[in-house]
C-alpha cells in the first residue's frame, strides 16, 4: 500500500464526510427534539420525529465508518470506563430508589419533573433514562478527557 495522491484525496474527503456526519446528526437531534416537544400537543408530530431518528442513524453510521483508528480507540476506551462507571451509578441509583429500603420519597422526587405524564409513560421514560443516561454521561466525560489529552 503506497502513500499516494489518491489517499490524500481520500483523507480530505474523509474529513468532509466526518464534518457532514457530525453536523447532520446534531441537526437531526435538534429537529427530533422540537418535534417531540410539539407532539405533546399534536400527536401526529411523533411521525416526522421518528423520521429524523432514522436519518440520524444514517449520519451516525457514516461518522463511525469514517473515524480514524485513534479516534475509534478513544471511543472504545470511553465506553469501557465511562460507560461501565455509568452503569454502576445506574445500579446504585436503582437500589437507592427502592421504596422498600428508603420509603417512596426517592421515586416521588423522580416523578415530580415528569408532571402530567401518566404512570406507565413515566415508568418507561424514567427506567430508560436511569439505565442509559449515566452510562452516556460517563462515556462523554471520559471521551472528552481523552480528546483534550490528545489534542
Amino acid at each position, binding site marked *: 500500500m503506497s502513500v499516494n495522491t489518491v489517499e490524500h484525496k481520500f483523507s480530505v474527503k474523509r474529513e468532509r464526510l466526518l464534518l457532514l456526519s457530525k453536523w447532520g446528526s446534531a441537526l437531526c437531534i435538534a429537529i427530533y427534539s422540537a418535534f417531540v416537544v410539539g407532539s405533546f400537543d399534536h400527536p401526529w408530530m411523533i411521525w416526522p420525529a421518528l423520521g429524523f431518528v432514522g436519518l440520524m442513524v444514517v449520519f451516525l453510521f457514516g461518522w463511525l465508518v469514517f473515524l480514524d483508528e485513534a479516534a475509534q*480507540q478513544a471511543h472504545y476506551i470511553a465506553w469501557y470506563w465511562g460507560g461501565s462507571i455509568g452503569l454502576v451509578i445506574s445500579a446504585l441509583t436503582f437500589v437507592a430508589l427502592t421504596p422498600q429500603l428508603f420509603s417512596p420519597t426517592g421515586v416521588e422526587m423522580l416523578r415530580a419533573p415528569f408532571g402530567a405524564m401518566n404512570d406507565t409513560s413515566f415508568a418507561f421514560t424514567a427506567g430508560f433514562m436511569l439505565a442509559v443516561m449515566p452510562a452516556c454521561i460517563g462515556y462523554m466525560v471520559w471521551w472528552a478527557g481523552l480528546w483534550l489529552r*490528545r489534542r
Partner: protein
Amino acid sequence: MNNRLRILRAERNWSQADLAERLDVSRQSVNAIETGKYDPSLPLAFKIARLFALSIEEIFTDDDNVAAKAAE
C-alpha cells in the same frame, strides 16, 4: 512505547497535518502517536514505516527493549 516520529517528521519539514494527510489519519492521531499517548495499530505502523522507508523497529521502540539494551 517510544518513537522517533517527531524527529523523522521534522527532518522532512512536515507539519503534523502534512503527516496526517499522508497517513490518512487526523492531526490529533499524529499528535497522540508522537507524544506516546496512543500506540498505532500494526497496519498503521507498517504504513508509517513505508512512508519513511524504515523498518518498524527503527521508528518504534518498546520500553522493555530500551531497558534491556540499557542493561547490556
